[in-house]
């Protein structure tokens, strides 16, 4: 069928039971949601797009919250096993919490996680991808150019 070359726009985002990815052709975006057995497509023609909303989610804080709970549980386990009593135990505690701190820092430093909603006459559509703010803004600039050019 329609096997013209699509260009990759974003990487794959893992959602609950599927993955999402955005591709592009001359006049439209192709949003692909892929499950274990198949793909569903949604085309968004640049000339039909009425508005774009880039919105900031609180996923980053959710991730950090999960990490905090995990650290608490690990801490309790260490405490109950009196791991702090020996030198090797103290080294283990240091390494584990050091790693957790690095993970927390990297979640934080990479910026707010954003989603993008495009609106056409058919209503709003959320792109099935999550993007860090820097990448999201870059994508928005690129889309702006395409959409405005198609609506002259």
């Amino acid at each position, binding site marked *: 069928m329609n096997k013209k070359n699509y260009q990759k726009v974003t990487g794959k985002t893992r959602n609950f039971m599927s993955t999402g990815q955005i591709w592009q052709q001359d006049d439209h975006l192709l949003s692909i949601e892929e499950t274990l057995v198949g793909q*569903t497509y949604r085309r968004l023609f640049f000339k039909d797009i*009425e508005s774009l909303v880039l919105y*900031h989610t609180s996923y980053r804080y959710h991730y950090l919250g999960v990490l905090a709970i995990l650290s608490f549980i690990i801490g309790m386990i260490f405490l109950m096993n009196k791991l702090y009593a020996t030198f090797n135990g103290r080294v283990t505690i240091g390494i584990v919490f050091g790693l957790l701190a690095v993970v927390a820092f990297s979640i934080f430093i990479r910026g707010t996680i954003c989603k993008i909603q495009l609106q056409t*006459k058919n209503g709003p559509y959320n792109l099935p991808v999550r993007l860090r703010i820097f990448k999201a803004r870059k994508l928005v600039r690129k889309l702006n150019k395409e959409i405005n050019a198609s609506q002259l």
Partner: protein
Amino acid sequence: MEPVSKPKKFLRCPGCRSPINVEQITDNTPVKCSYCDNMQEIILYPEFHKRMERVQQDVVSTGATEAGCFHHAHKRAVCHCDQCGRFLCSLCDLKIGDMHLCPQCASSGKKKGKLSTLKRGAVLYDKIALALAVYPVITLFGIYLTIITAPMSLFFTVRYWNKQESILTRSKIRFVVAGILSLLQIVGWVAGIYYISTRLPGWLEKVNTQ
């Protein structure tokens, strides 16, 4: 579908779905949703303003808050054409798939073959074949299922080798792995059954003589 989209409700907060007052939007400055505190950057394109104007004109021309049909001004509009945005009464509204179209757009779409050629999805037979070849083996007791799943996997591999449905070109790697794994499983079953069938007479003799 809403009969009339009121201008202010054209946009809703993606976080909480409350309407956004579009008059306050200046491009690219992040705004906070007044209901859910969701930060958002909103950009409006020419198409947005065009639809706003169209709605306002329709409201003015029918002299009411309800929009009239583009073709039959005295009739109440029930929806708008998904292609050109014109308001349509129940008579003019043509449902094609999950789209509402006016008669003109429907016929021009058919002529261009646009309505039928846009694929909405694809079955990924290579992923199915691979799942059938791998999952039974890695799950507890699933290994006995391979007597059914291995031939199925092989069937999908052979049948759809050159019939990939996806819009994007896919590599054959999943089919290759699925083919090899399912063939190995089938060989295993055949060898096992052959082994048992050659030894069975001997075993039976032993049991009988005891």
